[in-house]
């Protein structure tokens, strides 16, 4: 019973932390536009938190550059469990158009365990919502 209540709470209150690990801004502004009147994800309980310690879901955008790799791991470790990672955008899934550049470690999954991949360059805001919802369904 208590487990079910906790599961319900987790599904209803996913707080996300956004980290751009080296992307082009495209996915970032689409992610930010989730907060705004047209899509308003607060109605689903999604809040964009600013401290890793408060967040449940880490949303990465962009490929992982050599310089952000350490910060990315550190942010992930600062998050209290249970925690999940979403790779938003083609770049953070596979490296996308930047794949093969000298400073890029391709996708986020080379660094962190990724739960949901959202393809698209840039991924549409609706797709990000769908990704979060799919992740929430996975929580059960």
């Amino acid at each position: 019973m208590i487990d079910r209540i906790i599961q319900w709470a987790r599904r209803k209150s996913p707080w996300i932390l956004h980290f751009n690990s080296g992307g082009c801004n495209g996915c970032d502004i689409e992610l930010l536009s989730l907060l705004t009147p047209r899509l308003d994800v607060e109605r689903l309980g999604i809040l964009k938190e600013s401290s890793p310690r408060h967040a449940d879901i880490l949303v990465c955008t962009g490929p992982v550059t050599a310089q952000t790799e350490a910060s990315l791991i550190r942010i992930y470790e600062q998050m209290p469990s249970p925690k999940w990672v979403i790779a938003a955008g083609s770049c953070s899934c596979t490296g996308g158009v930047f794949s093969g550049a000298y400073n890029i470690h391709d996708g986020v999954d080379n660094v962190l365990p990724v739960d949901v991949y959202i393809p698209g360059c840039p991924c549409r805001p609706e797709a990000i919502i769908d990704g979060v919802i799919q992740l929430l369904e996975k929580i059960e």
Partner: protein
Amino acid sequence: MSRITIPIGPQHPLLKEPLSFNITLEGEKVMDSALRLGYVHRGLEKLAESRSFIQNITLFERVCGICSHIHTTTYCQAVEGLLDLELPRRGVYIRMLLCELERIHSHLLWLGVLAKNIGLNTVFMYAWRDREIVLDLMEEISGGRVSHAINKIGGVRKDLTQEQITKLYSNLPILLKRVHELLNIVENDRSFMARTRGIGYLSKEDVRRYCVVGPVARASGISMDLRKDSPYALYDELSFEVVTMDEGDVWARSLVRIYETIEAIRLCEQIVEKLPAGEIAATAKRKVPTGEFISRSEAPRGEVIYYVKSDGSQSPARVKVRTPTLTALITLPQQLNGLQMADVSTVIAGVDLCIACADR
């Protein structure tokens, strides 16, 4: 008083992109600041040398997600210059239309970020709500909200249909009205002015010494706009004003950007009215002849310069990109010195940073 150094970034709510900014504080006063770029450095210029001229359009679209269209436009202009290609007028007009729509989108986005940083969440929401109108128009025209993929060497991919023109006619006046509402806030709201007036001052002389471009330079009284000074595309056929102010602070930058948004909406209307008939793209030869070309254009944040060198092979021998943010970044330590900690966010938002552009 003891000094304390606080690291801003790489992950910080104030920055949408990773950037490391170490600020030394004495109490609440900023004494020193040190900048470290390179978190978004992907090595695009190197990567461009291994891709073909056509593949590079896709690549340079992703230099920056906010001003993606201006990057491809400038790149295509350079390659077209190398090919010595005459562009059909309709194609150039559609290009300019998207450039101006993108300027509106970028400035509204920026106003939202500034408002959010000074704690005016409501204005952030309003500005981004109005920005959706532009995004819809751009999606209608090009198929993409943020990346448009409409440029190709020799022109554009998609034509404007009559339906789209009607939509532009009906939505641009709405947008103009909304932007005037936002202008009213920036111009008259006391709490907005209290946080932005006199903050981040740059004199005319500073702007010259640091080679600053775009709205930041124009807010300090330097009239520099490549659309006017050395018209590229077909900007010489359109009439618009270059907005300048003399205050040189964040408030002046806000006003300059909003007036520019209004000018951009007018430009869009003009473009649609004057839209010539005919082809939208010229056929380009596959092989790019040897040569060098410098292409400049006015992005929402200022002058973008592309240098393309071809050695006659499939891919360019060198592509150099210089984005406007790099010029603005260098002024940050000077703008910040002696300010309060709370003003750091205002100043950083005020110059409209795009780290992805600066790092490439």
